[in-house]
């Protein structure tokens, strides 16, 4: 059975820049973006990589903020509201950004389809798709434009490494890792 603490211990391992689990609010996102920025400044990271990590983290955290499913688990008062977890780790080859949140099982199909589509596209195709979606006049009520994942894949040049863990009858836990290579 999937255990969030184990999952979090796994991502919160190695050379951690930031790690958090709990409720996601706009203020929390601001605080962690500021924190990651000052930590990366202190590490003397190449500005190009620093900007990519920051941009990817902005998209990841705002994706969590806009799209995660609110869950309440009987008997576990720690998991409530807009619950999610994330971490940024410095690796030998760059940085790894990890996020995890609950999604309703009924939504997995459409989400997986989107992720797979992005993963199969070449750099040029991603650029073309980005421009097409940018210019399609659609905007969700939540303010997201469906561009987040395309933007991340385009900037990093790496595949979206995702997984859905079975949690209970209604929810799965959606885990996403993104590598920014030096």
């Amino acid at each position, binding site marked *: 059975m999937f255990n969030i603490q184990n999952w979090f211990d796994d991502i919160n391992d190695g050379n951690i820049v930031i790690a958090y689990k709990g409720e996601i609010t*706009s203020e929390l*996102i*601001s605080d962690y*973006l*500021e924190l990651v920025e000052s930590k990366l400044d202190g590490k003397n990271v190449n*500005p*190009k990589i620093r*900007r*990519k990590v*920051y*941009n990817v983290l*902005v*998209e990841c955290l*705002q994706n969590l*903020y*806009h799209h995660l499913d609110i869950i309440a688990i009987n008997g576990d008062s720690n998991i409530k509201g807009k619950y999610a977890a994330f971490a940024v780790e410095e690796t030998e080859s760059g940085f790894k950004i990890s996020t995890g949140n609950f999604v309703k099982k009924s939504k997995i199909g459409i989400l997986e389809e989107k992720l797979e589509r992005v993963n199969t596209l070449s750099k040029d195709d991603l*650029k073309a798709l*980005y*421009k097409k979606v*940018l*210019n399609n006049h659609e*905007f969700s009520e*939540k*303010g*997201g*434009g469906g*561009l*987040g994942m395309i*933007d991340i894949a385009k*900037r990093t040049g790496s595949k979206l490494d995702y997984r859905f863990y079975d949690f209970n009858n209604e929810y799965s836990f959606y885990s996403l890792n993104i590598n920014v290579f030096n």
Partner: protein
Amino acid sequence: MEPISIEGTPKTPTVNFSADTGKIEIKGRSIPENSIEFYKPLVDWLEQYSSGPYQLTEVNVQLEYFNTSSSKCILDVFKKLESIYKSGNEVVINWYYEEDDEDMLEAGEDYQSIIKIPFKMIEIEE
């Protein structure tokens, strides 16, 4: 027409729009969770400005970061400017990017390919 003058925050840019000088400036960071809320007044201002624009509208965009939700709103701003240009007024967009920020240059080029207004890509040294 009243100018727009908004001071930047860690998530929203500094904005200066003046109908008297035709200068339009967006500078800093644009990473709010809800960008429509921030950009709607700017697009509305341009709509009103388009009825009697200054002979040359000079647009300076100098962004350090912007999120994907802002990218659509910035396109809306550019589309309003495009309609001003298409009605026979001069408009120029100066797109600033830091010297090694290829992603920001590419973002400017993406807009340039969608919007039919003269763009100038201007590199700034760090």
